[in-house]
C-alpha cells in the first residue's frame, strides 16, 4: 500500500474526548481511502440520512408556517398530518442509522481492468472499546472486502479483518495525530485482506 507523505493539515483533537478521537481517526480513514489511486467513496448512507433529515426539517417548517398563517381551528388537521409525517421521517432516520448504517464509517468501490472488469467493494466499521483499569481506550477497526466480476454476479473472493489498537498509539500527549503511523496500520490491514484474495 503506497503511503504518500504529502503536506497534510495537522489534526489536533482534545485527548480527553473519546468522541473526538474516534471522529478524527474515522475522518483520516475517509481521506486515506478516497484517494484517486485507491477507492471511490459511496455516499449512500450519508445521502439517505441527509434526505430523510432535511425532508423532516422542511415538513416541520411547512407545518409551522401553515399553523401560523391559518386560524387555529382551521389549521388543526394540517398540523396533525404534518406532525405525523415528521414523526415517521424521524423514526425512519433513526432506524436506518441504527440497523442499516450501524458502525459503518466508509464504503468504497473500485473497478480495475485486468483481462476483465473486476469490481472491488470494501466496507469499514469502527468502534471505540472503552478503557478498563488495565488498558487505555482502543479503536477497533473491522473491514469486509468483496471482489467480483461480470457486474457483481460472479464472486472472485471475499475477506475480512478486525483489529484494535489503543488510541495512544496514534495520538501524542497534545492530541496531535500521527498520520503516517495510522495510515501504515490501516494500509497494512487493507492490503492484507486484499492480497489474500489475489489469484
Amino acid at each position, binding site marked *: 500500500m503506497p503511503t504518500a507523505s504529502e503536506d497534510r*493539515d495537522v489534526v489536533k483533537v482534545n485527548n480527553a474526548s473519546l468522541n473526538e478521537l474516534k471522529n478524527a481517526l474515522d475522518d483520516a480513514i475517509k481521506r486515506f481511502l478516497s484517494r484517486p489511486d485507491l477507492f471511490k467513496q459511496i*455516499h449512500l448512507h450519508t445521502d439517505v440520512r441527509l434526505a430523510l433529515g432535511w425532508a423532516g426539517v422542511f415538513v416541520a417548517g411547512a*407545518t409551522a408556517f401553515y399553523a401560523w398563517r391559518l386560524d387555529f381551528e382551521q389549521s388543526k388537521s394540517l398540523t396533525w398530518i404534518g406532525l405525523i409525517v415528521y414523526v415517521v421521517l424521524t423514526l425512519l432516520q433513526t432506524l436506518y442509522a441504527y440497523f442499516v448504517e450501524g458502525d459503518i464509517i466508509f464504503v468504497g468501490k473500485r473497478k480495475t481492468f485486468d483481462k476483465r472488469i473486476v469490481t472491488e467493494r470494501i466496507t469499514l466499521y469502527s468502534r471505540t472499546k472503552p478503557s478498563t483499569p488495565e488498558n487505555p481506550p482502543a479503536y477497533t477497526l473491522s473491514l469486509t472486502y468483496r471482489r467480483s466480476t461480470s457486474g457483481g454476479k460472479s464472486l472472485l473472493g471475499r475477506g475480512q479483518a478486525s483489529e484494535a489498537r489503543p488510541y495512544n498509539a496514534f495520538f501524542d500527549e497534545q492530541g496531535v495525530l500521527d498520520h503516517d503511523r495510522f495510515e501504515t496500520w490501516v494500509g497494512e490491514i487493507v492490503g492484507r485482506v486484499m492480497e489474500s484474495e489475489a489469484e
Partner: protein
Amino acid sequence: MFADELKTLRRLGFRHVLLQVLNFASVLASGLMIWKGLGLLTNTESPIVVVLSGSMEPAFYRGDLLFLVNPPDTRYQTGDITVYKIPGQDIPIVHRVLETHDVVKPVNGVREKVPRPENQLLLTKGDNNYLDDVELYQGLDWLERKHIVGKVRGFLPYVGYVTIALNDFPQLKYALLGGLGLLALVQRE
C-alpha cells in the same frame, strides 16, 4: 477563534457541512414539532404562556409560566382562570371567569334543548383589579368562546422571566440563537 473547526469543515467537504447544518436545523424542527404537538394535545394554540402583569396577584405574579388546556366540549365554570385574546390585540390576558351565560342558538331553525359549550359567553375580571374586564373587550359586552385561548391547569413560578428578558432585549434572543447555531455547526455527534 474557530480556525480549527473551519479548517475541519473545509477539509471534510460539502456533504459534511450539510450534515452539520442539518444538526442545527433538526434541533429547531424538533422543538417546533414538540410545541405544535403540545398545542394539538391541549387543543390550544398556545399551551404555555407567561404572565405579564400583576392583575392576578396573589395567585399569579409577573414572570410565572402557565400551562393551558382548552377542552373542546366542556363548559367553562365561574372561577376558572382563563387566558383570552381580544381580536385586534396581540397580548393574551389572564383573568378569572366572573359570570357565564349559556346561549341556545337555533340549529337549522330548530331550537335546541341543551345549550352548547361553544356558544358560551363569559365575563372576566382580574383578581387584583377593581373593575371587571368589560372596558377591555373593545365594544363587546361578553367574551365569546372563540376568544378564549385556554384555561390554566398548572403553573411554574419565576421561569417566565427568561421569556420576558428575551422579548425585552432582542439582542439576547439573537445572541442565544447565534450561539446555539455555532455550537451545532461545529459539534460532531
